[in-house]
C-alpha cells in the first residue's frame, strides 16, 4: 500500500470527499512503544491500516549467532522485556532439547514458578495500559502496584527486576532464597484480593462494555488463518495452549484450566486474560505446595557445545506461543542459526484486519487488546 494518496489530473467533482491519511506513531502515546501505523480515514472511520515496524530492530537473532550459548540467555531478556523469564525459559529448553539434557525436577518447578509470576506481571501491564488507552487511568496504577510486588519477588530471586537472566542451560543458577516461597503465597493472596478491584472498575462498567463489546471481532477460523496465538486465539474460541498441548517445564504436574472466549471480541480477550491471571495464581500455589527437594542444576559441561542438529521448541509466553528454532553445527561455540517466532509479531498481523471499519478511538483499544511488545516484534 502506498503511503501517499494518488494524485490525478482528472477534474474533481464539486462535492468531493477526501481520504485522510494520518500517521500514528512511532512516537504516539498509545502505540505501546515504537509501533507506527499509517491509517487511511474516511472521517473518523478507518478504511485501511498499514503497519510499519522495525524502529526497535537490534538484530538480536544475528547477535545470538555470535555469542556463546550462555550469553544468549541475557539477549533473550531484551525481546519481550515485560516478560523476560518466559523468554529465558523458551531458549534454555530449546538448547536442552538439542543437547538432550535432563533438568532436575526442582529446577523445572522453579522455572514454572518464575514464568507464571512473569505471566501475572505481564498481564497486569497489559491490563493497565489497555485500560489507560480507553481512558481508565486508575486501573493502570492499580495494576502496576501489584506488578511491583512480582518484580520484588523476581528481584529477590535473581537480583534483577526487568531483564532477569534467570535461567541457565541445564537448570537454574540459584536455589530459592529462604522464605521466598512464603512470600510468593502472600503475593497470591494479595493478588486474589485485588483482582475484584479491577473488575469492579471495568467488567460491568457500561462505558467499558460499549468500548470493548463487538470491537475487533475475529472468528476462530480466521484467527487460525492469520496465525494468532495466545490469549487472542483463545478468546476466539480455539482451545490451544502449549502448556496443556505440549507440556514443558513442570506443567504436566499441575491442574489448571484454559479460559476460552466465545465471541472473539476485545471484551472476551479482556476476560480471558483476567481468568489467566487467576489460573496462574492457581498454578503458583500448586507449585509452591509441591516443590520437590534436590539439586537445581544438571551436570552440564563447562563449555556448552551442543551436537550438530536443529530443533524447534515452543512455550506459552504471556503473549502467546513463543518458539525458538536453533541450529547447531556441533563445532563452534555459538548457534549456527538462531530464529525466534515471537507471539507479538504474529498477533500484530491481525491488526489491519481488526481495525478495518472501526473508528480512530478503537484503533488504540485494538492495539492494546492484542498485547504487543515492540522489543519482541522487531528483535
Amino acid at each position, binding site marked *: 500500500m502506498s503511503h501517499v494518496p494518488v494524485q490525478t489530473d482528472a477534474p474533481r467533482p464539486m462535492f468531493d470527499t477526501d481520504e485522510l491519511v494520518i500517521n500514528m506513531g512511532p512516537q504516539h502515546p*498509545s502505540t505501546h512503544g515504537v509501533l507506527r501505523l499509517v491509517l487511511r480515514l474516511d472521517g473518523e472511520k478507518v478504511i485501511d491500516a498499514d503497519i510499519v515496524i522495525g524502529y526497535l530492530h537490534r538484530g538480536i537473532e544475528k547477535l545470538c549467532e555470535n555469542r556463546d550459548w550462555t550469553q544468549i540467555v541475557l539477549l533473550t531478556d531484551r525481546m519481550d522485556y515485560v516478560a523476560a523469564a518466559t523468554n529465558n525459559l523458551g531458549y534454555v529448553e530449546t538448547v536442552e532439547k538439542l543437547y538432550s539434557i535432563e533438568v532436575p525436577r526442582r529446577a523445572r518447578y522453579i522455572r514454572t514458578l518464575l514464568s507464571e509470576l512473569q505471566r501475572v506481571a505481564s498481564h497486569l501491564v497489559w491490563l493497565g495500559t489497555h485500560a489507560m488507552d480507553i481512558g481508565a487511568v486508575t486501573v493502570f*496504577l492499580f495494576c502496576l502496584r501489584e506488578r511491583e510486588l512480582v518484580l520484588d519477588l523476581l528481584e529477590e530471586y535473581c537480583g534483577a527486576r526487568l531483564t532477569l537472566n534467570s535461567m541457565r542451560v541445564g537448570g537454574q543458577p540459584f536455589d530459592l532464597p529462604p522464605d521466598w516461597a512464603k512470600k510468593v503465597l502472600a503475593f497470591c493472596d494479595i493478588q486474589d484480593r485485588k483482582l475484584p478491584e479491577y473488575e469492579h472498575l471495568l467488567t460491568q462498567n457500561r462505558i467499558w462494555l460499549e468500548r470493548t463489546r463487538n470491537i475487533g471481532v475475529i472468528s476462530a477460523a480466521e484467527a487460525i488463518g492469520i496465525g494468532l496465538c495466545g490469549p487472542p486465539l483463545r478468546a476466539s474460541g480455539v482451545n490451544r495452549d502449549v502448556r496443556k498441548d505440549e507440556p514443558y517445564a513442570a506443567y504436566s504436574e499441575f491442574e489448571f484450566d484454559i479460559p476460552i472466549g466465545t465471541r472473539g471480541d476485545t471484551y472476551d480477550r479482556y476476560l480471558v486474560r483476567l481468568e489467566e491471571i487467576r489460573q496462574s495464581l492457581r498454578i503458583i500455589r500448586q507449585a509452591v505446595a509441591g516443590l520437590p527437594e534436590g539439586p537445581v542444576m544438571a551436570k552440564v559441561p563447562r563449555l556448552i557445545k551442543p551436537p550438530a542438529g536443529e530443533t524447534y521448541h515452543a512455550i506459552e509466553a504471556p503473549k502467546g506461543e513463543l518458539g525458538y528454532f536453533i541450529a547447531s553445527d556441533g563445532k563452534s561455540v555459538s548457534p549456527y542459526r538462531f530464529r525466534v517466532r515471537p507471539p507479538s509479531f504474529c498477533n500484530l498481523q491481525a491488526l489491519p484486519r481488526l481495525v478495518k471499519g472501526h473508528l480512530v478511538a478503537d484503533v488504540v483499544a485494538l492495539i492494546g487488546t492484542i498485547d504487543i511488545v515492540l522489543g519482541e516484534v522487531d528483535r
Partner: protein
Amino acid sequence: MIEAVIFPLIKIVIVFAAVLVAVMYVVLLERKVQAWVQVRLGPMRVGPHGLLQPIADALKLFVKEDITPVRADKWVFTAAPVIVLVPALIAFAVIPFANQLSLFGYTIPGRVADVNVGLLYIVSVASIGIYGIILGGWSSNSKYPLLASLRASAQLISYEIAVTMTLVTVIMLAGTLSMVGIVNAQLAKGWWFAFAQPVAFFIYFVGGLAETNRAPFDLPEAEQELVGGFHTEYSGMRFAFFFLAEYANMIVVSSVATTLFFGGWLAPFPNVSWLSWLGYIPGWAWFGIKTFVFLYVFLWVRATLPRYRYDQLMRLGWKWLIPLAILNVVVTGFLKVLL
C-alpha cells in the same frame, strides 16, 4: 461616584484574581484527587504537600518557548486561545457569590452585576468559547488537531442543546432569568430546584461534563487517541490559556449548578431549628462549599470512568439527553399549568 464606579472595579479585580487563583488550585486539586484515588501522593515537592505547585507550573509555562507552526494561520492561531479564555472568565460577571456583604458601613451586593438576562448571558458567552476550540484546531494546520476540533464542535453544540433545555425548566420554575432572582425564587419556594427538578439537574450535570470536555467525554483532547487534541500544536502561555479556560469552565459549570439547583449562597435546612447555627456561616462560604463539591465530583468521575467513543457520545446526546430534556420541559409546563 464611589458606589457606581470604584466598588464595581474593585469587585471585578477581586473576582478576576480569585477566579484565576481558584483555577490554578483546581489544577492542583485535580492532580491531588487523582493521585489519592490511584494510591499515589501527587505533587509533593514544591511547598508543603505541593501547595506551591500551581505557581511553579505557571512560571514554567511563562518561560516556555512560544511556538507558532510555520504553516499555521498566524492570526487565527494567536486569537484562538484568547477566544477560549475570555468568555470563560467573563461568565463570572453575573454569578452571585453571596447575597450582600457589609463592609465599612457600605452594603455591597455579592456579585459583579445582576443582569436581568443573566442566564441567557451565561449561555451565550459559554458558546463563544467553542469558536476558539474550532479555530485553534483548524488554524494549527495539522491533522490530529483538526480531527479533535471537528469532534469538539459536534460535541459541544449537541450537548449545549440539552443543557439549555434544562435551563428552560429552571426559568419556568423561577419566572426570571436573573441569577439573583433564581436564588431568591428558591428562597421563596423553600426548597432548592435540584429537588424540584432532579431530571433537569442530572441532564445539566452530564451535559456540563461534556461541555467542559471532561472525562468521560474528553474526546477532543483524548491524549491516547489524538495525542493532545486541539491544543497539540500549542505551547507556552497559549497552551496555558486553553488549560486555564478548561478549568475556568469547570468552575463556571459548577457555580451555575450551585446557583440554579442548589440555592446559591443559601444555607441548607433554614427551617430545622437545631440546625439553625448553619445560618451563621456566611453566604459566600456556602457558595464555595457547594461549588467545591461539584468540582470534586468532576475530578472523581475523571479518575473512575473510561472514555466514551465519539459515536457513542453523539448517540447519548441526541438520542437520550435531548429528548429527555425536551420531555422534562413539557412535563414541567403541564404541571405548572395544572398545579
